[in-house]
């Protein structure tokens, strides 16, 4: 490697030239700094050179694919940083370490010339280097090189990858990786070869899976497919990978640990595939009483944490519900204690499966009428009946159940408010006032947020006005039969965290699914209402806002989105403040 030496000399020259121009006072400090820098650089280059020599040796002497490819991968990491490369756009990364793509290509070419490494493998790495180089140039916006050499690099990607393909077969790792880099290249370009490149890659991967004993390349391909959003294709390959990975003699505990490992890596697809095999195995061998606790642990792993306010780790509520169904199938409803029922329905509610959630909330109320979650379940059943199913009669029944309780919990207070609101909307102002005044009497200083809401409603009644505009619109859109068309499919609403503590900041965000409008931007208005907490949106143009709550209970967020041509849709979200 000649490059390090050259750079050292250059730096020394620059240093001495600068020193001549500076007064002596600064010279000493600068001299020390430059000497240090030069020494450090020298050490770093020396280390790099030594490492490169060691890796070259490893490449020449490699006895297995694993040794060969790991040496090449390490080599790439020495020459440039792939950590900064993203598959999609975004703000360009700061160039961290030196990106010596051209030097690596020179070095790789020298390996071919000296016949010191398998040519197809080297060709694949030349293609890969140019691929990363193009991405790097784009992301760091080094346009001079991009425009002057972009076409050359593009040609090198396709030509070098093709060279690797031409002299290998589908059992060779170089063949598979060359197909992968070609697909990634065409995918990034979104050109007309993308489809055929993907088909070629999948064919290559399946053949590789049946012909080659190697495992990791298959996972590499699946990982890349997943990162590009090709979930279905990635899953197919993960399945092949898992089938090869899991031999008959692998122990159940080991299997569970592999699945957990993939979960911790953040690869839910792979984790679930291994868990599925694990579950299939233990279903056949474990007795019911031993089996169910394992299943519960898995379900909990993929669930939102219903209690405690922590929602760490990745969630897949659909997968969790599949496991809950398995548990129910094996042990019946009786194996669910009230906490497990609550966890299950909380997850369904968060994945907006309101009808299913309602059924389980009702089951919880029936089976554990004195349970710790019954008031929350009753209130939520009232909300789902009223605002999701437009069934005011059943909704009222549930709210009234709470109102008739002896002690007034946050849920009873919220139920009183809902009953008052429904009466006010229907024009029964006397009844509305009754509910509101009862709430004021019971709430006193304990529920200032609810009291504020009620005072606003009572003022409206006093002034013979309808509920404030946003709220009235939400009630009209959600409760009138003629507005059934607004089925919450075009407006999505999410909050984070779902289980905040008092005064903890919560982010509430909406997204709207509009048809295409090209470059004609539609100005949307966001009509927020309900329990908006301490920091309400300040304008109609706000699709998201941050707030917090001073008192516990279930908070109902309402949203109607309006465009100049009318209402687009509405939605609600529930936040549980501990």
């Amino acid at each position, binding site marked *: 490697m000649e490059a390090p030496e050259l750079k050292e000399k250059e730096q020394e020259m620059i240093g001495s030239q600068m020193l001549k121009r500076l007064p002596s006072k600064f010279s000493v400090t600068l001299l020390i700094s430059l000497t240090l820098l030069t020494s450090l650089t020298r050490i770093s280059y020396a280390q790099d050179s030594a490492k490169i020599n060691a890796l070259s040796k490893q490449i020449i002497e490699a006895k297995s694919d694993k040794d060969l490819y790991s040496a090449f991968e390490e080599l790439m990491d020495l020459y440039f940083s792939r950590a900064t490369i993203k598959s*999609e*756009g*975004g*703000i*360009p990364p700061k160039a961290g370490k030196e990106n010596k793509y051209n030097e690596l290509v020179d070095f790789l070419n020298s390996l071919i010339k000296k016949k010191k490494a398998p040519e197809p493998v080297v060709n694949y790495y030349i293609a890969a280097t140019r691929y990363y180089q193009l991405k790097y140039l*784009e992301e760091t*916006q080094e*346009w001079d090189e*991009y*425009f002057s050499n972009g*076409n050359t690099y*593009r*040609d090198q990607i*396709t030509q070098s*990858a*093709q060279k690797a*393909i*031409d002299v290998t077969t589908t059992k060779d790792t170089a063949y598979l990786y060359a197909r992968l880099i*070609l697909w990634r290249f065409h995918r990034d*370009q*979104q*050109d*007309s*070869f*993308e*489809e*055929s*490149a993907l088909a*070629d890659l999948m064919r290559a991967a399946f053949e590789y899976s049946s012909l080659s004993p190697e495992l990791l390349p298959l996972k590499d391909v699946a990982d890349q497919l997943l990162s590009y959003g090709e979930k279905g294709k990635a899953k197919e390959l993960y399945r092949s990978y898992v089938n090869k990975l899991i031999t008959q003699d692998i122990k159940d505990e080991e299997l569970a640990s592999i699945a957990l490992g993939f979960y911790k890596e953040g690869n839910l697809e792979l984790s679930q595939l291994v868990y599925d095999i694990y579950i299939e195995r233990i279903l056949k061998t474990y007795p019911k009483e031993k089996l169910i606790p394992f299943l519960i642990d898995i379900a909990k792993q993929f669930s939102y944490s219903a209690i405690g306010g922590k929602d760490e780790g990745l969630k897949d509520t659909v997968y969790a519900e599949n496991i809950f169904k398995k548990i129910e199938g094996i042990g019946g409803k009786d194996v669910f204690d009230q906490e497990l029922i609550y966890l299950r329905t909380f997850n369904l509610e968060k994945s907006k499966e309101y009808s299913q959630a309602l059924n389980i909330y009702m089951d919880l109320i029936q089976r554990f009428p004195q349970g710790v979650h019954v008031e929350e379940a009753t209130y939520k059943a009232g909300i789902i009946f009223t605002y999701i199913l437009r069934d005011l009669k059943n909704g009222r029944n549930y709210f009234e159940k709470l109102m008739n309780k002896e002690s007034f919990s946050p849920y009873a207070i919220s139920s009183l408010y809902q009953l008052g609101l429904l009466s006010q909307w229907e024009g029964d102002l006397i009844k509305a006032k009754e509910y509101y005044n009862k709430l004021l009497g019971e709430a006193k200083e304990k529920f200032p947020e609810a009291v504020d809401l009620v005072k606003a409603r009572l003022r409206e009644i006093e002034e013979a006005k309808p509920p404030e505009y946003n709220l009235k619109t939400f009630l009209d859109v959600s409760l009138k039969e003629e507005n059934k*068309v607004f089925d919450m499919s075009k407006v999505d609403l999410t909050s984070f965290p779902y289980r905040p503590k008092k005064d903890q900041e919560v982010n509430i965000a909406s997204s709207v699914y*509009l*048809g*295409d*409008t*090209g*470059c*004609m*931007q*539609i100005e949307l208005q966001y009509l927020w209402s309900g329990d908006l907490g301490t920091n309400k949106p300040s304008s109609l143009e706000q699709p998201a806002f941050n707030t917090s709550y001073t008192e516990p209970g279930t908070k109902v967020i309402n949203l109607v989105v309006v*465009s*100049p*041509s*009318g209402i687009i849709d509405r939605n609600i979200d529930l936040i549980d403040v501990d």
Partner: protein
Amino acid sequence: MRKIYWIPLFLVLVFATGMASVPKPKVYIKKLKGNHYQLIVERKPYIVKGVCYTPIPIGQNHEYDWWSDPYKPWIVDGKLMQEMGVNTIRLYQAHDNPEEVKKVIRDLYELYGIRTILGHWLGFWEYPCPFYGDKDFQERIKKEVLEMVNTYKDEPGILLWILGNENNYSCLGQVNPWSTDEIDKEPNPQTQKFMRAKIYYSYVNDLTREIHKADPNHPVALGNGELVGLDVANQFCPDIDLVACIIYRGKTFGNLFNSVKATFDRPVLLSEFGADAYDAYLKKEDQNMQAFFLESQWRQIYENLANNKEGAGNCLGGTVFEWTDEWWKHDQNNPESWKVHDTESNWSNGSYYFDIQAPKNMNMNEEWFGIVALSEDQKEFGLDKRIPRKAYYVIREFWKRPNLKKRNKR
């Protein structure tokens, strides 16, 4: 025997003479093997290397009559265009004075060999809104369109006609919404959208037939925002010759060419696409960013031209949006702002990813789409001085030496 011998020869001669007397249209679309399409102009294949042309000077808005500008901006622009390799301009709609329009078309063609695509808005920007379901409205617009065709069809510089621009979005009900009593009675919003699209595309088909009768020499294009509604056009717009798509998808056009093939098998002209030259995140002009997107877009256009085995083969070329910046666009009702090169964005598009992290993701700067900038303080030939941006040179080089990928072997 002799007589019998002469009869077939006589018939062949009559037939050949007859054939020779039916000349091919001046401009037409040739269907090639594998459903590839090629635009033929005066018997030669023609790739549309075009720009959308609306030369509004600084301080004026869209109502400015540039056609009668004594400094004739098209003469200055035409020269720059010719030097770049532009062979076509797209005009969204002709001006009221036909003599002035003819002058522009002729000058560009005679001086620089640049042809003109002439369009019609089909009343899309009329207030209160277009009424495609209203017979009187339909007749009035039809009259205007046919007047346009009859007035300019014999101009040698005319290339083709484009009907509408992004008018199809109005069928979805969000942009310039319109309706009829029958549509209003329909409770299902999806059916309502289909009913509007059916009315609109049937009307465009009616116009196309009339244009074909009046002018068999130039193809008629359906101006369409994205591919929205093309499935309905496939049912109700069979006479249209090509689709002129308005597409803003960033670096590439994705699967557009194959999608058109699958939904409405007509040749495609990218009649409006491009990128702005202002980074809304870093708040500064970025010519490289624009050049990057445009080079990539043109590469894909070329990959999908006819006779390129690797592509869809149904692309005829494109007219990039746009030739010069238009300084009036951000605040259309405020004449003071027409003198200012506004840097505030009017819309958001995540496909232009370099500056998508701008506040509220508003990254598209409508006043910065020109591949040629206008000088704020310098005049040249009586006009705002033209300063080509990097994209101008990058596209010029690309057109000279298009670098196309070859498919990798199986």
